[in-house]
């Protein structure tokens, strides 16, 4: 790479500061500038708005301070369009001079700004699940305290094979990388534990009607695994009901299939469905016992995936900043501190692997009715789940990234 004059000057200036006066600067009271890259317009807005609410609640509870410093929060709306995400991140970085970024929401957004984050060395606490960003193409400026696409699907597959004793299953998901990765992870663990995936159906993200897929669904399987995101799981389950499939075939789901955001508008058709996720509003730990009721009181509904993601991220960031005396300008120090985090959060304890991805608990949750609303009751906990499940990271990474083609589906009928 060639070095142009401007970046050389910038680089040496930064290096000079870092060497000469770190202790001095650590004492000053410069606010921590946080940029939230989220989606507030368009079809993805529901999750994006919750991301903002979750983060703002954490800040309100903590006197708008991170590690004893005031927080300057800038919220940027990408509209869920990758080109806008790129402009917005450069706006946050260059105009608002943020120290750290939370977000973006969608995997394709994260992929669109991957280069930019590397080139500009922006510590980023991502919410997006794209596997390779903490695997084969790990971005050194990237930590993820939520889950990769398959991180919650691996334990679900284990649960289906070894506890529910399912033998033959169908996977259905959105026809996007997130759906492919989740189903591939599920398939690998399920088949290695003696199960068979007998059918895979991938529906376009924007399909209005699932009737055509339901007609194909193999009802002679033991259960169907849903790898949907957003509102699609909601629509699929309602249509299964329409076709009289509820009760004929058991339903289990990935981490976004029956999110609290979707559950609040569902009816009895959701009862009894089990899903795996790194969070549930019903989680019983001191932090969540404070967070979830307060969120529900303020917003009128339970926090789900996205609200919990930023609420957790804030706790992680706070702990990391504390360990470096709140010196947010020390990017390398902050990244190192983030990866060394070991902090209790609303989702349970959070630590990171060397690739920047969380090692944390994953919960099997069952939809039940409680106080008149539907909730995800935690029935089983898989502790300290890594993105590599029980595999050796090196061997795991030697395989291709999860996709429609890998691992190959050998048992389709």
């Amino acid at each position: 790479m060639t070095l142009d004059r401007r970046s050389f000057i910038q680089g040496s200036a930064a290096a000079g500061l870092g060497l000469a006066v770190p202790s001095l600067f650590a004492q000053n009271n410069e606010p921590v500038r946080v940029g939230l890259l989220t989606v507030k317009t368009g079809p993805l807005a529901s999750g994006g708005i919750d991301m903002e609410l979750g983060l703002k609640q954490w800040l309100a509870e903590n006197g708008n301070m991170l590690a004893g410093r005031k927080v300057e929060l800038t919220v940027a709306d990408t509209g869920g369009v990758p080109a806008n995400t790129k402009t917005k991140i450069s706006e946050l970085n260059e105009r608002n001079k943020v120290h750290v970024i939370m977000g973006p929401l969608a995997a394709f957004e994260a992929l669109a700004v991957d280069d930019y984050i590397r080139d500009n060395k922006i510590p980023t606490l991502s919410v997006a699940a794209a596997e390779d960003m903490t695997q084969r193409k790990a971005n050194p400026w990237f930590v993820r305290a939520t889950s990769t696409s398959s991180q919650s699907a691996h334990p679900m597959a284990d649960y289906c094979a070894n506890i529910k004793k399912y033998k033959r299953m169908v996977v259905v998901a959105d026809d996007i990388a997130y759906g492919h990765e989740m189903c591939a992870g599920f398939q690998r663990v399920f088949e290695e534990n003696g199960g068979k995936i007998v059918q895979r159906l991938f529906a376009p993200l924007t399909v209005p009607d699932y009737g055509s897929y339901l007609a194909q669904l193999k009802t002679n399987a033991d259960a169907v695994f849903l790898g949907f995101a957003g509102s699609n799981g909601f629509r699929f389950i309602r249509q299964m009901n329409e076709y009289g499939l509820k009760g004929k075939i058991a339903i289990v789901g990935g981490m976004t299939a029956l999110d609290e955001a979707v559950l609040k508008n569902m009816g009895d058709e959701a009862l009894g469905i089990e899903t795996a996720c790194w969070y549930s509003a019903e989680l019983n730990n001191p932090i969540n016992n404070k967070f979830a009721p307060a969120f529900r009181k303020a917003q009128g509904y339970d926090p789900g995936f996205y609200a919990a993601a930023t609420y957790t991220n804030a706790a992680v960031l706070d702990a990391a900043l504390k360990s470096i005396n709140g010196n947010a300008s020390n990017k390398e120090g902050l990244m190192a501190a983030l990866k060394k985090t070991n902090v209790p959060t609303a989702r349970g304890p959070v630590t990171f692997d060397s690739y920047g991805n969380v090692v944390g608990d994953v919960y099997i949750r069952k939809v039940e009715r409680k106080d008149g609303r539907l909730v995800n009751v935690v029935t089983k906990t898989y502790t300290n789940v890594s993105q590599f499940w029980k595999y050796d990271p090196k061997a795991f990474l030697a395989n291709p990234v999860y996709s429609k083609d890998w691992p190959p589906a050998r048992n389709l009928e």
Partner: protein
Amino acid sequence: MIKNSLLYIVLIAILVILPLFFGEYYVNLGSQIMVAAVFAASLNLLVGYGGLTSLGHATYLGVAAYTSAWLFQNYGMSHEYTALIALLFTTLVGAIFGWISLRASGLSFLMLTLALSQIIWGIGYRWVGLTNGDNGISGLTRPMPFGINLENSNNFYWFCLVITIICLFFIARFVNSPFGSSLKGTRDQEKRMSALGYNVWMIRWITFVIASFFGAVSGLMYIYLNKYIHPSVISITSSAEALLCVIAGGAGTLAGPILGSILIVLLKNYVSGFVERWNMLLGIIFVFIVIFMPAGMAPGFTQLKNRLFGGKKL
């Protein structure tokens, strides 16, 4: 005439030195405006000069960007070749789609261009093996013409400026040529042009092909700027925004698409930082311009200039 040339030279000189006074963010915003301006100017050939409202022009930006990204990813081809192939292939697609779309005119033409672009969008989204679907194609680089490092935002700005000026120069030459006049003739007096022995269909088709060529150029600028492509660039919204740039600025004027692009890019990327419901604002501006400023902003500015500098035409 001399006065006008002087005006252009001063304008270009200002644009050249502009990045020296602004931060990187604003420089990149400038590059983005130029990508949008070339794209809108290419669409303006159809909409403004040909009277053919296309709602599928994002196809050409998208096909060129995808072709370039795909060749680079799969064959590691150097940028000279990817650019050349992307331009040729996109122009070919334009020739075929033009042939299909121009079997109709008016609203049917609009709906056909829309439908054809939906096919391309469908491939972008669904044919994962080819386009990587929703994950898009990432990990791209910018070219290094004459050893100049375009990763630097100022250099990239100047690169865009050069391309933009060249494109606008040729577009201006095209519309002021005799062929351009006959094109305007087909727009205003279709039947009379036919009667005079002009092949109206052929004139429109050639224009369509040229428009898709310049659309492809903007697609290359786009992929170099973003180093990432996702099927959303081929969506209806993307085509609609380009159309909005043309209409807002002034269809059938040279300055129109540029003014429109400045407005829309700033609105989407700058104003959206202050206005929560910026999507609605975009819609309101769209409706407002269509109803109250059907000629767009450029004629308004021309009037202003005439008042200030006398009656010379820009």
